[in-house]
Structure formats: C-alpha cells, structure tokens
C-alpha cells in the first residue's frame, strides 16, 4: 500500500512524490502542493477529517479523501525500527 498524506501522524513530515493530476484541484498545486515539496501534518480534526497541513510554507486544511490521493515519502526523523 502506498503512503499518502493521510497516513502521516501528527507532527510527521513527508516529501510529496506523486499527485493524480486529473482529480486534484488546480488550486491545491497552486498553493504549493507539488512533487518534491515538503508537507507536515499539523493537526487532525475530530473524526479524523479534515487534516491541517503545512505544505511548502502554506498552511491549509484539506479533506481526508483528497489527502488519500497524494502520495508522500515519510521523512524519518526517528530511527528506523
């Protein structure tokens, strides 16, 4: 299973790998959600939705359904198990 933004835990960071362009709104990549950029999960709303992110210096919240589409590579700041 691929890792997406929705799989990050609070405070975890990742690098955006792949975005399904056809279904992701233009607005999102204009806000900096582009491959190669860093994303940090800041906060999760009750019922796990929506998610509050820092993408490339922009603070925004998106729904879980959108977050599940954006593939990331976790930045491991804790030692690997």
């Amino acid at each position, binding site marked *: 299973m691929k890792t997406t933004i929705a799989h990050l835990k609070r405070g975890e960071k990742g690098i955006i790998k792949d975005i399904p362009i056809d279904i992701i709104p233009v*607005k999102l990549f*204009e806000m*900096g959600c582009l491959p190669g950029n860093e994303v940090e999960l800041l*906060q999760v*709303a009750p019922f796990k*939705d929506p998610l509050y992110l820092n993408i490339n210096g922009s603070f925004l919240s998106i729904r879980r359904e959108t977050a599940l589409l954006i593939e990331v590579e976790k930045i491991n700041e804790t030692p690997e198990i």
Partner: protein
Amino acid sequence: MILTNKQIKVALIGNPNTGKTSVFNQLTGLNQKVGNYPGITVEKKEGICKLSRGVKAHILDLPGTYSLNATSLDENVVIELLLNKNGKDYPDVAVVITDVENLKRNLLLFTQIKDLKLPTILVINMADRMDRKGISLDIESLEQKLNTRIALVSSRKGTGIDKIKELILDYRSLSTEPCVNASAIDQPYFENLQNAFPEHELYKLWLVITQDANFVELNRHAVPVPDTSSFNTKSRSELKRLQQREAIHRYQFINGTLKEGYKTDIHAAKGLRATLDRILTHKVWGYVIFFAILLLMFQAIFKWSEYPMDFIDQSFASLSEWAKNVLPAGVFTNLIAEGLIPGIGGVVIFIPQIAFLFLFISILEESGYMSRVVFLMDKGMRRFGLSGKSVVPLISGAACAIPAVMATRNIESWKERLITILVTPFMTCSARLPVYLIIIALVIPDERFMGLNYQGLMLMALYLIGFIAAVGSAYILHKLLKTRTRSFFVVEMPNYKIPLFKNVAITVVEKTKSFVFGAGKIILAISIILWFLASNGPSERFDNAEQIITERHQGENLSEGELDTEIASYQLENSYIGIVGKAIEPVIQPLGYDWKIGIALVSSFAAREVFVGTLATIYSVGSEEEGTIKNRMAKETNPQTGGKLFNLASGVSLLLFYAFAMQCMSTLAIVKRETNSWKWPMIQLVFMSAIAYVTALIAYQVLK
C-alpha cells in the same frame, strides 16, 4: 502631463488574508461604496482615493483570489474583468497585495498578472511583522527580478500608503513586461496557439482555454475572446498537466528570486500560531470555545439588541402618534402615520441585530478564527451539504433569519451558501416566540410530568423541530441540487491577527446600509400594501363602521374606549384583509382555524409576532396585554364543533404551522437580495407553506 479630469483606474488584486481590504480601507477611507457585480451576488467594492496634484484614483477592490484559474464565482469575476480590455472596469494599473510572511505563495498570482502585460505594482503588506518573524528584504533586488516597483506597507500601522499613491500616480513608467516566460512549459503548443490567433495576447488565450477546463464557464458576452474551441489539440488531462507544469515553473522562478531578496531567520519564527491552534482546534476545547462564542453571539442578538429595538419601536410609535396629531386629518396623514412611519420602523428595527451579528462575524473573520471553525465543523456539516461556516448563520437564525441570511456571504461555495440560505428560516426565530408562548399557555396544560413542565417541553420540542427541519431539508436539497462547479475543500489557515477596529467598523456599517437600502425598500413596500389592505374595505360596511357599531350598541352604555375597539374589530373584519381571511376559511378549516385566525395568518405575513396583535384587534380586546388576550381567546368557540376553538388539536396545528411557514416578508426580501432573483424566495415561500399546511392538517386531524 496633467490628468485633472481623468481618474486613474486601479484594481487591487491579491490572495485572501493578505490584508487587501485593509489597504483598500486605508486608501479610500469611508469614501467607498459596496454593491454587486451585475447579475451575480459577488460584492463589488469601489472607492475614490486622492493622489497628489489634484489627480484622483478610482480603486476597485477585486475579490480575493489565489490565482487566475477560477474555482469560484468570486474568482471568476477577477478573470473576466482582467480579460476584457474594453470593459469599463478594466484597470490602468494593477496593484497586487501580498503578505510578507506568505510572499512565496502570494507571488504566484503576481507573476500571472504580469503576464497580462498590465502596469503592475507590488505591495508587500504586514511589514510590521517582519522583525518578529526575522524577515529581511532586499527591495532593490526584488524590484529588478520581478520587473516592477514595490511598496513596503503596513496597513495596520498605516505606513507605506503614500508610497502606493506615488507609484499609482506614476503608473505610466511601470514596466509591462512579464517576469516569467509561461510559454516555456510547452514551446510548440504555445507557438501554434499564437499563430492561430495572432491578434490576441498569448497568456490571455491560455487562460481562456484552461478556464473552460476548470469547469467555471466564462461569460462569452462579457469577454471579447476568440472561440478557442476550434483549437482543440490538448485533452483535458493534458491541459491540467500543463497547468501543473506552469505552477512548478512559476515557483522555480519565485524560489530563485526570493533566494536573493528574501532572508528569514528561522530561530525568530515559531510563534503564537502553533499554541493557539493546539487549543482552538482541540477535539474538546475547540468545541467548548466555539460554542461559548456562539452562546455569546446568540445572547447579543437575542438579548442585548432588545434594548435598542425597544427604543426604536417606541420612538416610531411616538413619531406616528405625533404625525397624526400635527398633520391635518385625512387619507394622506393616515398613509404617513399608519403606513409609512411604522413601515420604516419595521426596517430600522432590524439594525441592532444586524450590527451585532456582523460585529462578531467580522471579528471572527479578521482574527483568522473562522477558518478554524470551518476546520472543526466541516465533517459534521458536510453530509448535509452545508459548509463548516453554515453553523454561524444557522445559530443566528434562532434569533432572526434576516441577519443570518446576510451572514451566508462568507460561504465560498455557491451551492453550500444557497442551501444555508434556504434552510435558515426553519430555525426558531425570536418573532415566533410570542405566538408560541400564547398558544402554548392556552392549550398545553401547566402540569408536570416527572418534574418536567409540559409547556416547557413543548417549547423545547418546537425549537428542536425547527432545527431538524433545517438540517433535514438541507440534506434533501443537497441530494437534489446540481451545480456545474465542482466544489472541493482547500481552506487556507491564515495567521492569527488582532482585528483592526477600522475594518470591523466599516463592515458593520456597510452590512447595515446594504440591508436598509437593499431589502428595506421591499419590506417598506409590502408593509404599506398590507397596511392599506387592513385599513380599507370595498363595501359600505367598512366606511360606515362607526355608525353601524354605534347603533348596534345603543343603550348598552359602552365607554368610548370599548366602542372604539368594537369599531376597529368591525372594520378589520370588513377590510380587504378581512375579506381575504374569510375567503380562505374553507382552506384552513381542515386545520381547525376559523376566519378570524385566517385574518391573523394573512396579516402576520408582515411579521409573525403581528399574529397576536391582530387577534387582539379582531376580538376587540382593548389592550395588547397578553393575559387579557389569552382569556378572550380561551372563550372563543368553534362554530362547527361547538367546543373550544383553541384546544389541543387546533393549538398544536397552529404551532406547527408557525414552525414551518415562511411567514416573514422581510426574510423573503433579504433572500431575494442575497440570491439576486425572485426564484429562490418564491420556491421557499411555496415549499415552506406547503410543509406547514400539510403538517398542521395531519396534526389537527389526528388529535381532533
């Protein structure tokens, strides 16, 4: 060159949350007016700014937008305006407002505007936060790279505003060269495009093509653009890929530019934001705080505004009395004293509630808190087709639907906004309360069941019914309404800021003005018509009421006051409204009402609370004191059954009727204004009345 007669046309453009409105307020002061763009309900703010040497600038504050790819009606306005070179609003110079803390993202829009080959000024706002955030700028380097002139501004402190004025005055010397070469993302495609339409600007052509791919249709009549549908060499997904490449291309340029001109000391950063977010979006405290704020808002609209409203009510009553005494008796005086003055009073009476609500809302918006509300409430509201922001109008609707409907302006998605507007009037507003209280007192026993008072339970049930009707119909509308624009949820979480008093004050004044001069006209007109119908009648019985009643009660030794109330009752019965009330009797009989209630139903269309007063007149009760009216109503018998007219069945039927019916012309007027057509208020009127009728009918027939 002297430009004394000509105003320089300036458009303020920028992302939301960059302090664009503050800059606009600084430039124009109170010298501004707020209207609508023709045909749509997007706010159009314009104002005049005095430059120097007698030159004035006409400033247009365009809706906030993240880029030139529209995803909402508001953003579409910006694009249509900038694509239409011959339009009357087409600017001489564009002023792009950015926030120094979000410069990277804000510059994306700037580079797009530059591609339109407009003279463009860059305003870097919130300069007062630079020290705290450890940001330093090399203005000269930025100006050179971005091919523009820069004004470093703090709209909060009012610094740098003169620099903007200076640059506007000198707009002819600004560069119109782009700073990014957008066509580099697909050279052959853009060359072909230019060759196909040689007389048009390349970037505008690209915008026209991609706009259609974005699902927001351009108004072809408003924008003189070529028909690009023949130029169909790319599929939608290829176009989107190109758009992504365009965004990457622009960000590469911006990153390169900022590397030299923008320094930030990370250690100085880290602020209040994280701490506040942890509390305000907390899964328990977040809700506790939000509901505490809602409670405070509700108190203000419901309770605090009572004092100014009572004052307004009494002032207009005295004014009406005074006019009647001073002016010579006659039809014209009656029109002024009984039609016009109370009609205006009926508009002014809403001002305290509107002012209070918008005081709160603009503080919540300005501070950045509203985005956190959306974050907290989105999941719960989404399934009903509502926005996280719909909570505020819905709760305010429990005080009064009029300010509540106006408060929906902040909801970005048109569908979510429309649903909120349509369902808000179901919430139990304060005008329903007098009707509920008197009928509950009349038909629900004042007894306790397991320590709970039946009357209290009934009142609570009515509030609950209103709320369920609101979210229930929202859910149905959500399933029924189809929109062309796809809505997705990408919400910026702006920095927390202390609201600027000036911005809050201007919002409150503007909202109040737009109610008084927008919906006020309709309310005044309808209330004068209703007054006319209640105080005139077609037959001699109406004209000779005084004589008829005096003769009828001869020898009964009635006091003058008693006689007057008898006359008033007889007149109302024979007025046009009385005739309508009688005419609808067959229709409302199955609900358990007689023609007298019919008259009260018709006249309470002006405002629900009129119901009680009308019954008082028709039962010729001299005072409006509740106890007296109640006693009189309790005695009323139903001519058909011989039993009491107000019994449990007819009482519950009336309560349900008032819970659902759209008995409020002021709400209809404001819905007309906010949706810009009579279509939606009429649909609301028909459907709500139908639901009211059916539920009241069922209740009466079952309980009878």
